[in-house]
């Protein structure tokens, strides 16, 4: 399926769960999904006979600036040989997204990374802890407004 067909299929199936899309003029066409519908959309895309997205190649967090965070899902189907990108946008003040770790196991650690670096909360994640930074670290370092602390456990951090 090409991106336009995938988008039409999603739009007819989920109507208001699908917010916007950019299908032309980009390398990876993307569809933006409401953060509280992403689990349904993911399950549909994996299980439906026409889509069969069996592989989540990448899940990343993004700081869109102006108080918005995003989770980006790069999906690929080994069986159908097609791909699509999903995005969910959430406000920094309420960064809750449904976890898709129950759909693709590989999402487990990648969601933990997005939590660690951007502070996104993945509801329903089996074990949402930091994965890279120390457990007692303050803040989420890849946020654009992040300030490096002067000291960490008595060690000076800046050069």
């Amino acid at each position, binding site marked *: 399926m090409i991106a336009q067909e995938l988008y039409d299929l999603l739009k007819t199936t989920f109507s208001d769960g699908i917010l916007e899309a950019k299908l032309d003029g980009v390398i990876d066409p993307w569809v933006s999904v409401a953060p509280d519908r992403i689990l349904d959309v993911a399950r549909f895309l994996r299980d439906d006979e026409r889509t069969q997205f069996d592989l989540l190649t990448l899940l990343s967090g993004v700081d869109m600036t102006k108080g918005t965070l995003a989770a980006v899902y790069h999906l690929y189907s080994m069986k159908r040989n097609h791909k699509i990108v999903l995005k969910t946008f959430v406000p920094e003040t309420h960064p809750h997204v449904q976890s898709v770790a129950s759909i693709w196991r590989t999402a487990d650690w990648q969601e933990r990374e997005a939590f660690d670096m951007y502070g996104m909360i993945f509801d329903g994640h089996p074990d949402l802890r930091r994965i890279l*930074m120390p457990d007692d670290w303050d803040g989420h*370092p890849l946020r654009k407004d992040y300030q*490096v602390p002067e000291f960490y*456990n008595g*060690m*000076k*951090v*800046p*050069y």
Partner: protein
Amino acid sequence: MGLLNQRFENGNVLLTSVDDVLAWGRLSSLWAMQFGLACCAIEMMATGASHYDLDRFGTFFRSSPRQADVMIVAGTVTLKMASRIKTLYDQMAEPRYVLSMGSCANCGGPYWEHGYHVLKGVDRVIPVDVYVPGCPPRPEALMEGLLKLKEKIRKERLILKQTA
């Protein structure tokens, strides 16, 4: 012993000081602690492997800090790792030495400005004897660093305390 053959015609005796013998013994078998942190560790492994053969200097890797004389800090010291390095250093028996290998361990390297997670120099948590510059240093540079450390040990006096 080819070097020493036919040099001691007047009997089987060599005159030296206890300190010299001790220093010679210690510097000739500098056991290094077996751990690596980042890309520099790859170069350290190459130095230990057959082509550069660190063994011929009496240096090979031990997996326990209790058996190690020198800690080669090869790579990026993250803040998360820094406390572990301190613990490992404390576990080494004295006299112990630290060789900081590469820009990262020396001063933060490429992470000096934006590395929120990197300790800007391992000398902020443990004392360093020799700094080897480079990103990464070539095996020759690491060997040079070890030879420099040997020079330092050769001058140390354990029995005869230096008088000022």
